[in-house]
Structure formats: structure tokens, C-alpha cells
């Protein structure tokens, strides 16, 4: 049944990307808007308790797309809020996501140091 879980991850992850593509092509929004909308959608879905079941169902199909970042924001905030009350909402938001943000910064720096962007090749 391993193959089946791969297939589900592929389809669900692909469908989330289809939504992103539709936001850009049909909704005529910028990549920045698309990113923000997907993050917020993930956060709202988790707030409604819907994102965790999606991860259980689709695995990496739900954790790899950017919606999972929104999910992690809400998740961290709710978990810390239970422990520390309202202040936990603020401290918790970046508790789970800090590794992702740090990784983006560090890998971005490394890529910028090594590579120089060029135009389309001939």
C-alpha cells in the first residue's frame, strides 16, 4: 500500500498547486498574492481543525506546499496558548515555523554567495 500513499500525496499536493496556478492565471494575482493567500488558507484550515486530517491523509502532499506553513503558524500559536495563555499566541507562532524560516534565510544566503543569476540561455 506504499504506492497508494505516494499516489495520494502526489494528487493532493498537485491539487494545492493547481489552486495556486489558478489564483495567478485566472485570478490575475501576483506570485506574492498567491503565496499570501495559500499561507492564510492553511492557517484558517488548521484553525478549523481541517489541516491535520489532511496531513494524515496525504502526508507530504499536504506538508510540502506552502499551505503547511500557515498550518504550522496556527498550530504553534494554539499549542503555546494552551500552556501560557494569550502571550503564547505570539510566542508560539514561530515556535514550529522557526526552522523553516531559518532554513530559508541560510540557504538563500548560500545560493546568493555561490550563484550569479543569468538570462535565458541561447
Amino acid at each position, binding site marked *: 500500500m506504499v504506492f497508494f500513499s505516494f499516489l495520494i500525496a502526489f494528487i493532493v499536493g498537485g491539487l494545492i498547486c493547481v489552486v495556486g496556478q489558478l489564483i*495567478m*492565471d485566472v485570478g*490575475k494575482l*501576483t*506570485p506574492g498574492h498567491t503565496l499570501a493567500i495559500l499561507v492564510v488558507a492553511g492557517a484558517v484550515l488548521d484553525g478549523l481543525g481541517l489541516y491535520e486530517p489532511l496531513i494524515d491523509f496525504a502526508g507530504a502532499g499536504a506538508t510540502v506546499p506552502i499551505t503547511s506553513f500557515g498550518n504550522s503558524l496556527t498550530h504553534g500559536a494554539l499549542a503555546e496558548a494552551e500552556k501560557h495563555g494569550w502571550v503564547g499566541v505570539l510566542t508560539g507562532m514561530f515556535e514550529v515555523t522557526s526552522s523553516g524560516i531559518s532554513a530559508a534565510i541560510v540557504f538563500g544566503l548560500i545560493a546568493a554567495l555561490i550563484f550569479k*543569476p*543569468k*538570462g*535565458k540561455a*541561447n
Partner: protein
Amino acid sequence: MVILFPSKPSILACGAVAGPLENKSVFNSYFDSISEDERWGQKTNEQGHSKMIQEACDIVMKKADLKNLDVDYFLSGDLVNQMTPTNFAARELAISFIGLFSACATSVSSVIIASLLTELGASEYAIAGAASQHNAIERQFRYPIDYGAQKPATAQWTVTAAGYALIGKHDPKLPSIVAGTVGKVMDYGDVNPFHMGGAMAPAAYDTINSHLKKRHQKITDYDLIMTGDLGKIGLKILKAMFAQTDAKQEELQVFRDAGAEYYGEDEAFQAGASGAGCSASVYFSYIEQQLKTGRFKRVLLVATGALLSPMSFQQGESIPCTAHAIEITMG
């Protein structure tokens, strides 16, 4: 507003330079030089942009056997903020310089002013033209190329190219400028910066119409009416607009667009080419050479420009557009 040039200033020499990707252009054999490096050996795209302008102007002066001191005016523009690539090229050229911004219509607005200066006797030799460098302009108007943003099918590809012409006194053996039309700024409320061709077509239509009316001409009086960078979609819109007048279907063949033809049918370039260097590098290479060989006797060059800034479209402003035209005859 149509301006007549009774003394018929001539295009004495032309220089067109392009980047490595432009080797794919259907016009590549007409360019004077194609660089292997998109930055012309410079550190930044903007410095390469400047170097490209200098190289094109050097070619023009070499062809006419002139030195920088012999040239009276340098009239040019580009699309980068404050036009620094052109300003910096002017610093190296050391020719009296006026920077002109008509976006991608600068190739023609500069020639109109050069022709006026020649007509007045204020200039013996004036270099006019425009340029654009893909990476620098993408960063200016859309996203830095490093960002890798997707583009819709209506988007056009900014060329890396420069085209310059030396305008001087009438020479019966050379192409000569007999009239020019300075376009109005038209705005039909288009807000999509990835669909410039559609936004610019009405401006091109208006300028062509005004020119024909004032000159008592029909489109059939021309061997060619070539717009600058309407692209494949914009050209279709322009033809459709003329189809609604009394123009016959076969007469619409007279309309061509430099941007629509630039990269041939290659779909990687979406709706075709654009950029200030697009019309300039085609007008001041292919068109000039075709006029000289006698293939064309009378042409109308209509460079189109979208007058937006990144800030204006982020603030939700629509895209005002313009088009300037010059009528060139052989001899």
C-alpha cells in the same frame, strides 16, 4: 500633430547591436554586431546596457567616418529609472545630449526631434535611437530574473538590443524623413502590465489615422506600416481596428509589427518582443537596409510605448500609451 520636413533630412548611417539571445531573432543577419555576453563584459546588467548603447553609437560614427566631436546631438532614452544607462553612455560619448523618455516609442520620438534640429539648421549630425537590456528592464518593471516568476501567454519578451541612426542633411541616395507625427497619450483603462500590446494598439491606431488624414494618404500609399512592439496579439487588434474602417482585408497586409516578428514563431517568447531596443534595432537595421535596396519606397514607422511605472501599476493606475510615427521615403 503632424510635422513636415521639407528639407527631407536623411538617415546617413545606422548601427544596431544585440545580445546573445537575439541571435535567435529573424532579423539577426541585419544587426551590425551580436554580443556573446549579455552584460558586454561589465559587472552589472545596467553597466552592460550602457556599454551596448556606446557600441551601437560607435558603429554609427565609424560607418559615417565621424568622430564624437563631429556629432552635434545625441538623442536617446531607455527604460531604466532616470535613464542611467543612456546618461552614462552619454558621459562616455561626450556629445551634447538630451535624454528622452517615450518608453518603447523613443526610437521614433528621438528621430522626430533630430529631424527638427536638422530642419532648423541647428544640427549637422545627430544620433537618435533607443535601447533596452532584458535583465535590467525585467528588474525595473516586473521581477528580477532571479525571482523566476511565471509569465502569462500575453506577456512579451523585452529584447536586449540597441538601434541608432545618424540624421543629417538630405542625401538623394539615402532614406529620408519627410514627415512625423507626435502621438497623443491614450488610455483605455487597461491595468494588466503583462498585456501591453492590447493597451498600446489604440494609440498606434490613433497616430496612424491622424498621420494618414493630415497627409491625405491611404494605407495603400505605403509599402509598409510597421509598429514597434504591439506583439502578436496587439497587431491582431490593430488590424481588426482598421478592418472596421473602409480598409480591405488584403490591404491589411501592409501592417507589420517588429515585436511580433522579432523572435519568429518561437513560443518561448510568448506574444513576441518588446522594449525600447525592439523597434530601434529593427528600424535602424532591417528597415533602413530594405529601403536602400529599394524593396520599400515609402514606409511609416510607428513606435509604440506604454507609459507606466512599477509604482503606478501597483497603485492600481491604468496604463497610458502613446505612439509616434515617421514617414520615410527612399531618396
